[in-house]
Each structure stands twice: as structure tokens, then as C-alpha cells.
């Protein structure tokens, strides 16, 4: 008895999952209470999350303004400090855009959940009123369709989502654009961007290292051991002198 109770604690909870429920109008009526509860909880969670993200986004926007002001006050064109600030601004903008996208997703989710809730409630109300099953069936089909469209939408969004490139030339272009934006300069032209790319290439190509002869070759250059000793002796003398 006691052992059974303990094993029950470690059993997986039998939680009904919303999108895996039986595809039957009869079943949905029976489970409408739990489905409504789940949808309501999802809506509230999404609202809390989106509120938190919106507060974060406000903070990021405020920080962006501060950095823009700093950049203007700094007035050190092409310095490392300015570059660092521009990079920071760029990162903040990327983070801000990500948060905006997430907020939109939350908003879409809430709308879909609200629609689903209304459909389930329709089914409940119709059943309570003792209406014909055909009409309930129609609403159930609508409910399924809305669920399908939501799934498709999410799937297409996942497919079309493009990861922003983080290659150096793209970063440089963006930084230049940002700089123009902050200082109120005219928009960046294509030629400028190309020149930036070339400059970046030049800067990134390391200067050729001097070729170092191998140890064997160096030893071969001395004809006898005495020559080698003399050379060492000369080197010591040079160091002391």
C-alpha cells in the first residue's frame, strides 16, 4: 500500500494536452471545462510574458537613445571607442527587433486562443440549449479549421524566418548605416558600401610574415663546428658590448 503510494508520486502526470485531444465533438463537450481552463491559462501566461518583454523593450529603446547621444557627444570619427559604441547600438537594435517579433507572436497567440475559447464556449452553450448536433458539428469544424490555419501559419513563419548574417562586411555596412543615421548624415550609397567592403578586406588581410629558415638549414650554413662556435662567441660579444 505504502509502496504503491510512493510509486504513484513518480508517475508521469496525466495532463490532457490541448492539441492532442480526441477529434470528436462529443469528447470536446465532455472536456470543454479543462480545455477552457488551459486556453485561459495560456492567454494569461502570454499576457504576463508580453508585458515583461514590453518593459524590456522600453529599456532597450531608452538605452539606444543614450548611446546615440553619447556617440554625438564623443565626436571621434573612426575611433575604436566610436566603433565599440556603434557595435553596442547594433546589438541592442537586433535584441529590440527580436523582442518586437516575440511580442507580435504573443499577440497572435492570444488572438488565436481567444478564438478557440469562443468556439469551445459556443459548443458548450449550444449543447446546453439542446440544439441540433449538425450546428454543433459546424462549429466544431470551424474550430478545427482555425486550429489548422494557426498551425500552418506557425509552420510557414518557422520556414521563412531568415537568420541575419553575421559576416563582417554586413556588420560593417550596418555600422556605417547606423553612423549616418545617428549623425543625421545623408543615406549611404552603394559605392560607399563597396569601398567599405574593400577597406575591410585590406584591414582583415594580415601582412606576410617573414620566412624563417629551418634549423637544419641554419646549421648547414656553417661549414665546420668551429665556425658555429665563433658565430656564438661573436653573438655573446655583441650582447655584452
Amino acid at each position, binding site marked *: 500500500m505504502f509502496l504503491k503510494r510512493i510509486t504513484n508520486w513518480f*508517475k508521469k502526470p*496525466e*495532463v490532457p494536452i490541448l492539441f492532442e485531444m480526441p477529434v470528436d465533438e462529443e469528447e470536446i463537450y465532455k472536456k470543454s471545462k479543462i480545455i*477552457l481552463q488551459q486556453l485561459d*491559462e495560456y492567454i494569461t501566461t502570454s499576457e504576463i510574458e508580453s508585458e515583461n518583454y514590453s518593459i524590456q523593450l522600453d529599456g532597450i529603446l531608452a538605452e539606444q537613445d543614450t548611446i546615440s547621444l553619447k556617440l554625438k557627444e564623443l565626436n571621434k570619427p573612426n575611433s575604436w571607442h566610436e566603433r565599440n559604441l556603434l557595435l553596442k547600438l547594433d546589438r541592442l537594435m537586433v535584441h529590440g527587433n527580436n523582442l518586437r517579433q516575440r511580442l507580435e507572436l504573443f499577440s497572435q497567440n492570444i488572438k488565436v486562443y481567444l478564438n478557440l*475559447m469562443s468556439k469551445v464556449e459556443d459548443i458548450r452553450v449550444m449543447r446546453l440549449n439542446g440544439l441540433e448536433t449538425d450546428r454543433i458539428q459546424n462549429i466544431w469544424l470551424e474550430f478545427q479549421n482555425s486550429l489548422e490555419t494557426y498551425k500552418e501559419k506557425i509552420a510557414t513563419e518557422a520556414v521563412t524566418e531568415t537568420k541575419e548574417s553575421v559576416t563582417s562586411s554586413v556588420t560593417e555596412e550596418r555600422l556605417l548605416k547606423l553612423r549616418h543615421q545617428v549623425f543625421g548624415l545623408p543615406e549611404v550609397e552603394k559605392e560607399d558600401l563597396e569601398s567599405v567592403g574593400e577597406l575591410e578586406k585590406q584591414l582583415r588581410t594580415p601582412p606576410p610574415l617573414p620566412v624563417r629558415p629551418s634549423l637544419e638549414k641554419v646549421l648547414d650554413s656553417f661549414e665546420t663546428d668551429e665556425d658555429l662556435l665563433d658565430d656564438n662567441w661573436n653573438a655573446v660579444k655583441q650582447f655584452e658590448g
Partner: protein
Amino acid sequence: MYIEEGSIVVIVDVDQPTLSRYVGTAWTVKNVISFYHPATALIYNQTYGELVIPIRCLEVTPPDDSPLAHNEFVRITKGYARETYHNCRNELVGKTGKVVGYDTRNNYFFIKTTNGDSGWFPIHCLMPLNFKGEKFYYPEQDVVLDGKKVKISKIRGTRFGNGQLLLIDGNWMPSTTVRSLP
């Protein structure tokens, strides 16, 4: 009634007829003048400005993230052992009433029953009447989440009152994802 600076209060009664238009409005407590007779509070509202009013005319509302809202109907399910600030009125157990006050020191709710009695109760002695979910969870309750025993830190109602959100390990979880201990 315990009131402190920053509490959100609602005016429920007024001494002067000129102030009757403020009844039912929410204000923030700016200062408590306890040495006055009767004890008075300086309250502030963005629309109406500042006002000095006796504390007995005010009701403290629970904060936004509290599981119960002001004027929400509840059933008193059980009593509790003596507490630092309040004594349990066991005769109120089993009665229904509404939330008319809140103590920020220990998060107790002041319940006024339908027959006019009143008393202080913590959340684990109350059950909201409009809760439509399967099971109501309380703070500090142990539950099973993903096969592990966890403790609920805080609870919060949902938008339509169909369920609950539970704060577990810093995350708000839907109550349908957890299971109560056998």
C-alpha cells in the same frame, strides 16, 4: 485596519457630504497620520489630487498580482492557528463573504461575510466562488511537475477565472501542467 504608505485604498464612506463623489474611487496612500484622532491618512489620486480622510473610511485593496481581488466573493473553508497580528474567528468557517481589506504585513485578507461578521484570513483558508477550474492550488503547496516534487511560491488568477497560474521556480506555469500529491 493596517495602512501603510504606498497602499492602494478605496474610499467606502465619507464624513462630509461634499466628498461623497469620491466614494468607490481608488487612491494611493501618501502618508499616515496616526496621532490624529481619528487616525487619518493623506491620500493621492491623479485626477482629484490630495485628500485627508479618516482611515475608517478606507479599504485597502490587494495588489495586482494577488490571487484575490477587492470585493471578490470567497468561501471560508477552514480556520488557522493564532497569528502575530490576527486571531482566527472559527465561527466564520463555512460562510461566504467578500474581500474588503488586505494586510501587507502578512498578506491576510479581511473578509466581510454576508451576515455582517468579519475576520482576517490567509489565502489557504479561502476559496474564490467564481473559480471555474478543476482544482484550486495554494501557495506553499507541494505539487508534482514533470515527475518531480516542487513547491508553489505564488498563485495568480487567470483573465477569465477558468484557471490559475502558479509561480514555480521563478516561472509562471499553468495549473493544468501540475498534479497534486496523492
